[in-house]
């Protein structure tokens, strides 16, 4: 076994230790916190590279390279529950991505959070997050996976609610935790079910793991009560966890709200890594999801659900993003939509397809979020795109990198990573035998993506700057929420200046990410599907002719067509005719007020949930409280009253029946005694007289008795 596989645990433990040390240190030690966090991330990144190179070296050998290690955690019924980690291409690629993106975002945060009073706490949480996320990635055990997964959820909660004094942030944090927890409960049930079925939670363990063929065969043949294979049922429960974490329909509501957190958090957690954990989970348990009996269709029910959920989420979120005005919310919905693509890719094309988009998306979405952070920062905490405009000339580097990210996200052909990964998904969707609808939904989503990103970029970077600096701090209700805005400013902001470019510590990560946003696409083109080969353990040859095959080429052209349509439409509506003021209604709003309103309000999903789930919960709480107070409590009261009533009855009987009789008896006796005592008058001669009379009477009686 390679050294790195043996010591893979070091990767998450390093940031964990950093987080622990930061937590126990004083709040003021900013430098120490940043150094520790970044230092540990650098080490983790280097180790990840190590792990990655190990998989690279073994790539091309027979089958997928995979090494596992484990330790005994706890014992029950005389058996040990083993936890452990696995090093395989999937892990390796995620490790590199997570640690690298985290590292860049850590560096960016040093600038962005420089003046926040809770700087150290921020790095403590971020390190903890990175540790947990890396733990998720290396876990070879669903339980360990779940443990880290939940800690990821916790850090997400802590970071969304980082500015806890804002009620909206506190509420968003709670919403995020609870919404994802709904999914987690599905995951928990799936996990215990899997455990019960296979007797192990280890993914891979030399043929005994729950994702290996013997366990899978047992599960596909075992039917549940509903006539569904156990593997499918478990797969669906586990998918529920992914739905929660990855913001898929119908549990997507938390993700846009999560933008209440600081921007680096949004970038790291809610774009690049954490939300991808759900996709990663599906990729990890893909063997389970795709397990099907010999001879049955490969498109299992579980995968079909994944596909449909993904496709619907993709189009749903993309359409919502069209009508949003908050720069981060647009990106948030775009994230939801892209996650939908990943799910779609997993469902129709397998691990490599979904994961490829995950990796490319991580880079360009982190880039976009950090870019938006830079924009927000430069515009003095303004988040409303209607109040921006013309930033191109104020922030050239940010603009350039942002444009790259936007083109990658939109899937601009050939030169940007998003094109290749999305194209692969659409390709796979096109070939999906079950239905063509996901493919069409995906295409429509691609068009919308290009459209809303163009809209955003046009509104933010082109035209004239629409917000006068004097009012910028107070001009919208959104900014009011940012009470912390003032301390986060770096550079020479004097309260009324124009937008400015961000400092180098924030720009450099942007540039690096931009480079990757372009380059990464080339590892997975149809001509050189290295990424597929790497994950599936097959060598990948360079074959240019694949690119020009009629099917591939046609699809590429089609998707390029959709992208160009979207870009053109966006530019025509928003770029050419720039809005003049911030208050002007949106072009679409004028054209289609009803549709726009629907989209602007995110199809009223939040409201529907408020009216159903939340209200039901409140109702249930009241009902239980009522039950407690009046039904159970009422029974108790009833018993009390009955007891009291009986006691009163007894008291009445005692006082007025028993006591009365007794008293009367006593009184009579006493009076009788008094009466009798008069006979004893102390006169001896009276007694004597009585005796005499008695004697006479006795004698007479005897005589009389004798006679009869």
């Amino acid at each position, binding site marked *: 076994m390679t050294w790195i596989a043996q010591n893979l645990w070091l990767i998450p433990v390093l940031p964990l230790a950093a987080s622990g040390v930061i937590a126990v240190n004083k709040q003021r030690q900013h430098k120490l916190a940043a150094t520790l966090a970044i230092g540990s991330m650098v080490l983790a990144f280097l180790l990840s590279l190590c792990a990655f190179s190990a998989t690279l070296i073994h790539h091309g050998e027979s089958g997928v390279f995979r090494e596992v290690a484990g330790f005994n955690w706890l014992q029950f019924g005389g058996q040990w529950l083993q936890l452990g980690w696995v090093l395989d291409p999937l892990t390796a690629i995620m490790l590199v991505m997570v640690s690298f993106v985290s590292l860049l975002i850590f560096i960016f945060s040093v600038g962005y959070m420089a003046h926040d009073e809770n700087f150290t706490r921020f790095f403590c949480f971020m390190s903890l997050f990175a540790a947990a996320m890396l733990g998720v990635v290396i876990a070879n055990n669903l339980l360990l996976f779940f443990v880290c997964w939940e800690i990821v959820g916790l850090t997400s909660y802590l970071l969304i609610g980082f500015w806890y004094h804002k009620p909206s942030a506190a509420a968003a944090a709670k919403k995020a935790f609870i919404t994802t927890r709904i999914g987690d409960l599905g995951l928990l049930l799936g996990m215990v079910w899997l455990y019960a079925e296979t007797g192990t939670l280890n993914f891979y363990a030399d043929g005994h793991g729950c994702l290996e063929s013997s366990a899978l065969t047992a599960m596909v043949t075992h039917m549940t009560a509903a006539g569904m294979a156990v593997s499918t049922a478990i797969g669906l429960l586990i998918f529920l966890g992914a739905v929660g974490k990855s913001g898929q329909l119908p549990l997507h509501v938390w993700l846009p709200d999560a933008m209440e957190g600081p921007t680096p958090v949004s970038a790291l957690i809610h774009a690049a890594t954490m939300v991808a954990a759900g996709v990663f989970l599906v990729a990890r348990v893909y063997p389970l999801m795709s397990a099907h009996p010999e001879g049955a269709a490969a498109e299992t029910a579980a995968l079909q659900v994944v596909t449909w959920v993904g496709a619907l989420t993709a189009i749903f979120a993309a359409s919502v993003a069209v009508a949003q005005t908050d720069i981060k919310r647009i990106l948030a919905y775009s994230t939801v939509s892209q996650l939908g693509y990943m799910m779609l890719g997993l469902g129709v094309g397998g691990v490599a397809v979904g994961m490829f988009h995950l990796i490319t998306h991580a880079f360009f979405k982190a880039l976009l979020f950090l870019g938006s952070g830079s924009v927000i920062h430069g515009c003095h905490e303004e988040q409303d795109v209607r109040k921006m405009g013309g930033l191109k000339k104020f922030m050239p580097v940010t603009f350039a990198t942002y444009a790259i990210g936007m083109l990658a996200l939109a899937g601009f052909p050939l030169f940007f990573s998003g094109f290749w990964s999305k194209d692969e998904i659409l390709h796979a969707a096109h070939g999906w035998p079950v239905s063509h609808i996901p493919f069409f939904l995906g295409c429509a989503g691609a068009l919308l993506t290009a459209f809303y990103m163009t809209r955003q970029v046009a509104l933010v970077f082109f035209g004239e700057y629409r917000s006068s600096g004097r009012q910028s701090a107070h001009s919208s209700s959104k900014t009011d929420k940012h009470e912390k805005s003032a301390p986060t400013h770096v550079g020479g902001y004097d309260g009324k200046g124009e937008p400015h470019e961000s400092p180098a510590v924030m720009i450099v990560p942007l540039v690096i990410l931009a480079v990757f946003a372009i380059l990464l696409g080339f590892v997975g083109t149809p001509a050189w599907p290295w990424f597929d080969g790497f994950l599936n353990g097959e060598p990948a040859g360079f074959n240019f002719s694949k690119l020009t095959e009629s099917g591939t080429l046609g699809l590429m052209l089609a998707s390029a067509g959709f992208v160009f349509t979207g870009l053109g439409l966006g530019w025509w509506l928003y770029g050419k005719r720039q809005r003049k003021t911030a208050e002007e209604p949106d072009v679409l709003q004028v054209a289609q007020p009803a549709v726009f309103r629907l989209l602007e309000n995110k199809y009223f999903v939040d409201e529907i949930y408020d009216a159903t789930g939340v209200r039901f919960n409140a109702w249930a709480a009241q009902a239980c409280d009522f039950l407690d107070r009046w039904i159970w409590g009422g029974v108790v009261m009833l018993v009390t009253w009955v007891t009291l009533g009986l006691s009163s009855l007894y008291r009445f009987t005692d006082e007025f029946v028993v006591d009365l009789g007794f008293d009367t008896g006593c009184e009579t006796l006493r009076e009788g005694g008094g009466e*009798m*005592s008069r*006979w*004893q008058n*102390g*006169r001896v*001669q009276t007694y*004597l007289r009585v005796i*005499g009379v008695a004697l006479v009477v006795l004698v007479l009686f005897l005589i009389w008795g004798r006679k009869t």
Partner: protein
Amino acid sequence: MTPLQGCLLVSALLFAIGLAGAVTRRNAILALIGIELMLNAANLNFIAFWRYGAHPEALSGMMVVIFSIAIAAAEAAVGLALIIAIYRHYKTTNLDQINSMKG
């Protein structure tokens, strides 16, 4: 009239006199004397029933009477002592005034 009847008559008379004395006299000593008379009436009865009874040779009546006389003597002694004690306490022997034993 047989001798027995005569004896009984005398003793009844004696008893009646004693009872009348004991009941009517206010003086404790006289009352005591009355009681003595009644006792002696009883003794007389014993003697009479013994002397004219079925077994005059058995001396049982005589025995009882002798006992009774002894007891009467003791009783008289105790009674007189009581009377003296009462007299010392109440400065009187009038029985009507000695009624502190009433209930």
